[in-house]
């Protein structure tokens, strides 16, 4: 394995004021069972010690002449310097399981596969927001994403931990700044070019997730606007991609109609008909709990999953607010969100 992938992979880590976390990220990359030939940290003109800390940890640090204004901008700055066959994107607040790269790379043995992503779990699970996100990821990565992979269409090759064939990545335009969800944009562009993307659940990464509402709000605003922007940008090419088309249509419906039902219809019915209607907020709890517990038992995290479970419903409601706001601003008011606000 090590022989096969030796010197074929460069990891690039965009970083803006990440002095607190970048050391662990770089170390977790260099200490992999199959380590990248080079770890490049793009210090996007940080105002803290990100550059010196990353260099001390063993990374090659590059610095654009001015702040690029987005994660995608920083990644593109580094992509020009990459001369290996494969390139990996890892967030500066993300650590990897020691064998994550070893588990991920074989997906690219198939010459048609140009990108692969792994399982994502929050590194810290303490606050209500981190707990909500933990359940959300356990559900998404243990059930939804595996089915998407079965149908050969993972919705997104996650931006915090994905590997790409460098040539095809460049051909697709790399990471674009035209939307706020550069990973979704890139994944859908790769599908439009008839490439394959894989999800490898055995390759696990641990990003730092928003611990408070301020950070969570920034992230959800970025993600929800990014989703709507990508639907607007890619809908024509999505139409010819059967399963992906269906997934996005259903997701868009849920983003609008289910959010409206959740935030408007249920409270209204509770007032007008009966307070018992409020049970609707929890009606799908058993359905969500099954895949979450299935994964948690395997990871010996059953108690953590059960304790975190209620937080999911709060996060889901907040998510609905941001999603409706994004649809309203992007599609009705035609006022797209253009500023990349760094959260986690």
């Amino acid at each position, binding site marked *: 394995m090590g022989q096969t992938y030796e010197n074929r992979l460069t990891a690039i880590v965009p970083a803006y004021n990440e002095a607190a976390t970048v050391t662990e990220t770089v170390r977790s990359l260099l200490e992999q069972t199959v380590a990248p030939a080079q770890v490049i940290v793009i210090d996007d003109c940080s105002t803290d010690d990100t550059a010196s800390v990353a260099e001390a940890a063993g990374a090659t640090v590059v610095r654009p002449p001015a702040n690029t204004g987005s994660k995608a901008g920083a990644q593109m700055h580094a992509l020009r310097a990459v001369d290996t066959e494969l390139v990996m994107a890892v967030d500066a607040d993300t650590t990897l399981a020691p064998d994550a790269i070893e588990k991920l790379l074989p997906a690219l043995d198939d010459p048609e596969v140009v990108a692969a992503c792994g399982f994502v779990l929050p590194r810290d699970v303490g606050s209500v927001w981190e707990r*909500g996100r933990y359940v*959300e*990821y356990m*559900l*998404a990565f*243990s*059930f*939804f994403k*595996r*089915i*998407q*992979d*079965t*149908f050969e269409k993972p*919705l997104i090759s996650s931006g915090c931990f994905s590997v790409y064939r460098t040539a095809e990545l460049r051909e697709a335009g790399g990471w674009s700044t*035209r939307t706020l969800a550069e990973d979704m944009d890139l994944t859908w562009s790769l599908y439009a070019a008839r490439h394959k993307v894989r999800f490898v659940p055995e390759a696990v990464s641990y990003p730092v997730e928003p611990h408070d509402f301020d950070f969570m709000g920034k992230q959800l605003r970025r*993600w929800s606007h990014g*989703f709507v922007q990508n639907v607007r*940008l890619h809908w*024509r090419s999505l*139409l*010819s991609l059967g399963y992906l*088309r*269906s*997934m*996005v*249509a*259903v*997701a868009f*419906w*849920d*983003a609008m*109609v*289910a*959010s409206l*039902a*959740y*935030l408007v219809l249920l409270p209204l019915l509770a007032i007008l008909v009966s307070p018992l209607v409020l049970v609707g907020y929890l009606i*799908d*709890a*058993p*359905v*969500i*709990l*099954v*895949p979450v517990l*299935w994964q948690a038992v395997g990871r010996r995290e059953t108690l953590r999953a059960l304790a975190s479970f209620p937080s999911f419903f709060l*996060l*889901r*409601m907040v*998510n*609905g607010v941001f*999603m409706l706001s994004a649809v309203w601003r992007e599609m009705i008011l035609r006022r797209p969100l253009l500023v990349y606000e760094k959260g986690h």
Partner: protein
Amino acid sequence: MSAGIPGMGLGGLFFVLSALLAPLLELARVARGTSTPARRRQIARQFAIAIAMIAAVDLTLRGFLLVAAALGSGAFSDAGGAFVLPLAPIGITGAVLAFVLLIAKSMAVVQGLRRGTQASRPPSSGARRRPRAARAEA
């Protein structure tokens, strides 16, 4: 599909149905010789989870009905029956799902027809429009 979006209804049903259909579709791969043990394991796992999700809904509703019956409501007396899944709401959700998928498919068909028409049309001698990608980048 973001798991954080409210409504396991449509998205949930879509993925449960996908998981239930996957073994059938895999048979075609088996016949072609492109199926792998890892793929079959993954499909079996998702199938089992989907069945467990359906069972969880059934058990939860059964619990609700038992509680309601214990509280003396004569309207809820089916808890001991073989199957208590609320078929009407599931049917409505299924119909909405079919509607959404049909809309998406119809758009794809219309797009295909337009492309076919444009391909068979002779090139215009008038002013050329800027390519869409260029407009998007502008």
